[in-house]
């Protein structure tokens, strides 16, 4: 290949890193999935033929929202700590993120338990039930997927396998976690504010 060295570009050549770009495209696809669930929720507000209605059974989930929103902060601090080489600090913030995520899921479990046992609202009760469990469940399943990734990294971290060179990978996970967080703001607005 003799001709190639003649064609050196004059400007330096840098492209975006593939991990974050791939995650952004994945988030785009996920957003489209959530958009359909949210559209269905908004479309069916007030169209249930029977009770219970959202106003009767839903409470604004203050504790859950605080858990999830603050977990975005802790994961951000964790990645920053790893970037500066403080692996111990990274692990503490990372585990805190997991605990906050677990708190959120516990809140969802409690809410669902109350709705099913006390208010007899299931996915097949009425349109509110269908749309509520679908949208909140879709979000919760994303939290579970995120928790799985967080736990794997935590397990690797506790055995000393997460080093500052891995910061881009943890950064990609944190992008996903922030996305799940932002979606929760949309879900809360749709389900507990507009929907009531």
């Amino acid at each position, binding site marked *: *290949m003799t001709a*190639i060295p003649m064609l050196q570009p004059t400007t330096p050549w840098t*492209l*975006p890193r593939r991990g974050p770009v791939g995650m952004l495209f994945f988030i785009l*696809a996920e957003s*489209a999935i959530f958009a359909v669930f949210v559209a269905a929720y908004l*479309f069916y507000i007030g169209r249930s033929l029977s009770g219970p209605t959202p106003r009767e059974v839903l409470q604004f989930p203050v504790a859950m929202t605080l858990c999830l929103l603050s977990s975005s902060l802790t994961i951000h601090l964790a990645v920053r700590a790893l970037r500066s080489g403080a692996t111990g600090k990274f692990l503490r913030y990372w585990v805190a993120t997991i605990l906050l995520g677990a708190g959120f899921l516990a809140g969802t479990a409690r809410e669902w338990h109350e709705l099913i046992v006390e208010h007899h609202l299931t996915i*097949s009760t009425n349109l509110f039930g*269908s749309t509520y469990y679908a949208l909140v469940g*879709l979000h919760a399943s994303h939290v579970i997927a995120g928790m799985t990734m967080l736990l794997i990294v935590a397990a690797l971290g506790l055995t000393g396998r997460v080093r500052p060179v891995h910061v881009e990978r943890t950064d990609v996970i944190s992008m996903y976690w922030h996305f799940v967080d932002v979606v929760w703001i949309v879900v809360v607005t749709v389900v507990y504010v507009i929907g009531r």
Partner: protein
Amino acid sequence: MTTTQFPIAADTDESAPSVFDRLHEWVVTVDHKQLGIMYILFSLVFLVIGGIEATMIRLQLALPDNHVVSAQAFNTLFTMHGTTMVFLVGMPILAGFANYLIPLQIGTRDLAFPRLNAFAFWITCFGGLLLYSSFLTAPALFGGAPAPDVGWFGYAPLTEPTYSRGNATDYWIIGLIITGFGSIAGAVNIATTILTMRTKGMTLGRMPLFTWITLVVQSMILVAVSPLTASLILLLLDRSLGAHFFDTQAGGSAVLWQHFFWVFGHPEVYVLILPGFGFLSEIIPVFSRKVIFGYPVMVAATVAIGFISLGVWAHHMFSVGMSPAANTFFAVSTGLVAVPTGIKLFNWIGTMWGGRIQLKTPMLFAIAVLVQFLIAGITGVMLSVAPFDWQLTDTYFVVAHFHFVLVGSLLFAIFAAVYYWYPKATGRMLSERLGKWHFWLFLIGFNLTFIPQHFAGMLGMPRRVYTFLPERGLEIWNLVSSLGVAFQVAGVACFAWNLIRSYRRGVVAANDPWDAWTLEWATSSPPPAYNFAQLPVVRSARPLWDLKHPEDPDWHYE
């Protein structure tokens, strides 16, 4: 002019590997070229299956009051034909071409995420097998229809458990969710590759048009296929957990399903046809011996089609009874798509204008696309006019229109692409003689089948009916339409024989048999596992021209 040669690693193992070893290599591979070929072979198998279904449909409709198949079997046939052709032929074959060509065209060694790539192929493959396993299991276990029979669009409330008993519809839903995951994974991978893996100097403005179009298409898949996956999940919740999203008796809306489906369904048409435009944009310049006419305008038109196509979906729903404002909006937006597509047609003609046109088989197919896509576009604009659509919606006119898009344009473009890139993938040329037979037989057969359907439709023949009455003026159109199938089958038989025979006995292909200008032709045929021994450096939109003509490179003029 010397062809660029890269040192190829000599085959160190002299003894031929056993069949099992070779099979094992293909099953565990993460190489984009092998996965691309597997995608394409998978799709060609389903092309034959979908083609057999279409042949049975045309046999049934050849004569009035015919009884080749029952009404129920006919429902299954058109459902499986549509589902197969869109999800198991169109999507994966285009994913296969993107897989194979993108890393070569942008001068890199593999996709951004090779293992994700293997995952995407295998999940697509198993999704397709799951869909078809409905034929084996569903009737025996649960009664109801033997295979999906709700149409490829699965309109509610027909898909609800009340109306579709048994599990055939569940096979359809889950099969499509799974192939959808494959499409989304593939799209994330390919789009990321294009943005992050380009070789030195290949700016966005120097990417080959096929790469550009693929970037737009993969982005569209992310926002178009995902809504289908979401809607199918909602439908699955209805069917298996008793939710009421599309259950009209509990207040659910059947029209909402139509919106959700076509939010996917119309961008999907462009997801399918745009890669065809990509093939044309590579093939027409090479066989006209001219640079593509209006490269930046082609890119802009592609992006414009991508955006506009996201806002036209309800033109499938004019007869639903939307508001006049909605009808007007979707009629205008649909008409608007004709502008960038028209620009593309003129640019291809502009490329050919004054060129030294070589009528090799890929170019023949490409020229046929220009004519047939023009007809498809014209009938498309006709159908975008809401009052006209009210007359002809759900008739064979619509069937003729979209088969001119998906067969007359896309499938012809795919054939062109296979003839064009087969030498690169296999190291052998396809036979020109068999190729010309394939072209003429398929051209005649396609037009015999689908031109008459315009007239049958205008005379009022509805879609999806399993037979029709005599003495309504429909016999001749249907008979001619069915006769055309024989020519198409003969053409495809030539194609299949050509693929098989040329693999062993075709003329050995040079690295750059068409004297082309994009980087896939800069490596050997077939390329080594690492694609390029040295990653090339790019200074213009035609890097291989620059290498072959150092005295007059393109970057002097760009």
